């Protein structure tokens, strides 16, 4: 299975500001002077040596993740990251019809606002299907494109499949299980299995009761997965302050992942108020938490950023 992250921000799209960009450039230049850079040939190694929050941005587009498995293209959520994925799909297709399967966790704005800008939907030759356990998904998405809010209606190209949340379904040879999460208005997690590999997408969920028994239904669903993509929007403290906002934090994710024997834990749905430095600091603290509390557990931690891709 191949996975690529197109949108990793939660709540609202968050472009890098000019001030943030200037700070990155200024810091890089100062570090370059300190490192004694004198020639172009030194630049690649120097860039590689820079702290991640200086040479990279996690990105500002909202939730959208692509999975390729068994010859199928699965898209998890349709936040603003969907726009660039759509352009890439057209480029990749070489003019041939595009087939894509869009699995929706829920219909909050940060998970649907890329749909009006998904260019493959402008061609009726493409085969684009939405999946969700929610009733009336088509009507929900159509309301987003009422003329009061957007100049064009929802594309008639889209097909809609309502899922039974208690039943596994298949897209080609890819098996998909569904599990409800704790989020205002509801949200669903997807466990995607192809061959002997699994990826779980579990964003927009809050875990207020953390006893072993309380989290067991979730850790059972997450059990043994190769990759768990986990909502870690807040810090531990902010998570308690923002009770019932429906999100989680890295420490809770780590403990649940370890209980569930997860191999890779990817943090996603980043808080719009957190800049790159803060997000990478949170990742470092998360790694230290694992080192302190679970030094012998081989859990790999990753911070999702736009363009992160890998093959499992």
């Amino acid at each position: 299975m191949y996975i690529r992250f197109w949108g990793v921000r939660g709540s609202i799209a968050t472009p890098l500001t000019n001030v943030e960009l200037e700070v990155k450039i200024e810091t890089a230049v100062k570090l370059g002077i300190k490192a004694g850079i004198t020639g172009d040939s030194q630049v690649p190694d120097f860039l590689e040596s820079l702290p991640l929050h200086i040479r990279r941005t996690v990105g500002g587009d909202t939730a959208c993740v692509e999975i390729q498995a068994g010859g199928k293209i699965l898209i998890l959520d349709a936040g603003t990251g969907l726009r660039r994925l759509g352009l890439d799909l057209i480029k990749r297709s070489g003019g041939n019809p595009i087939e894509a399967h869009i699995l929706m966790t829920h219909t909050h704005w940060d998970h649907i606002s890329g749909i009006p800008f998904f260019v493959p939907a402008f061609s009726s030759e493409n085969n684009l299907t939405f999946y969700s356990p929610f009733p009336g998904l088509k009507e929900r998405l159509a309301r987003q494109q009422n003329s009061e809010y957007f100049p064009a209606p929802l594309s008639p190209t889209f097909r809609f499949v309502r899922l039974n949340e208690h039943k596994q379904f298949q897209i080609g040879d890819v098996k998909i299980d569904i599990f409800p999460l704790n989020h205002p208005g509801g949200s669903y997690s997807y466990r995607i299995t192809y061959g002997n590999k699994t990826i779980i997408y579990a964003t927009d969920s809050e875990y207020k009761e953390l006893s072993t028994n309380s989290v067991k239904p979730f850790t059972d669903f997450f059990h043994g997965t190769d990759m768990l993509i986990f909502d870690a929007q807040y810090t531990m403290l902010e998570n308690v302050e923002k009770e019932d906002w429906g999100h989680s934090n890295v420490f809770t994710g780590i403990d649940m992942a370890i209980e569930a024997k997860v191999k890779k834990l990817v943090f996603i749905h980043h808080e719009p108020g957190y800049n790159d430095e803060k997000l990478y600091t949170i990742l470092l603290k998360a790694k230290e938490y694992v080192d302190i509390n679970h030094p012998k557990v081989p859990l790999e931690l990753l911070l999702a950023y736009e363009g992160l891709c890998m093959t499992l």
Partner: protein
Amino acid sequence: MKIEENILNDVSSIKLEGRFDANTSDAVEKFIREKIEKGCSQFVLNMENVSFISSAGLRVVIIIARELRNEHQGDLHIAVLQPSVKRVFEISGLNNILKIFDDEQTATEAFSK
């Protein structure tokens, strides 16, 4: 987990022993909530013999301290953290919102200042 209580000058000093995690956090929360219901609002949590704290333990500490401050004009003081637990308090940010003391006596006396 072993939980023991001593009361001195209206301060409930609770001494924990063992791992403060998803298997034990409910018991600690329940124990303290019962004391709150009986009218106690000033607590010292002595963690000298706690060698491990997980997110479940951290969450109980935060919500109890917040409830005591917001609803009971009280507080939860932390006393005697082992180095690894102290570091978990630091990386989770709890050291920024809680009063942490090196010994139980100072943590208890701090309520009368």
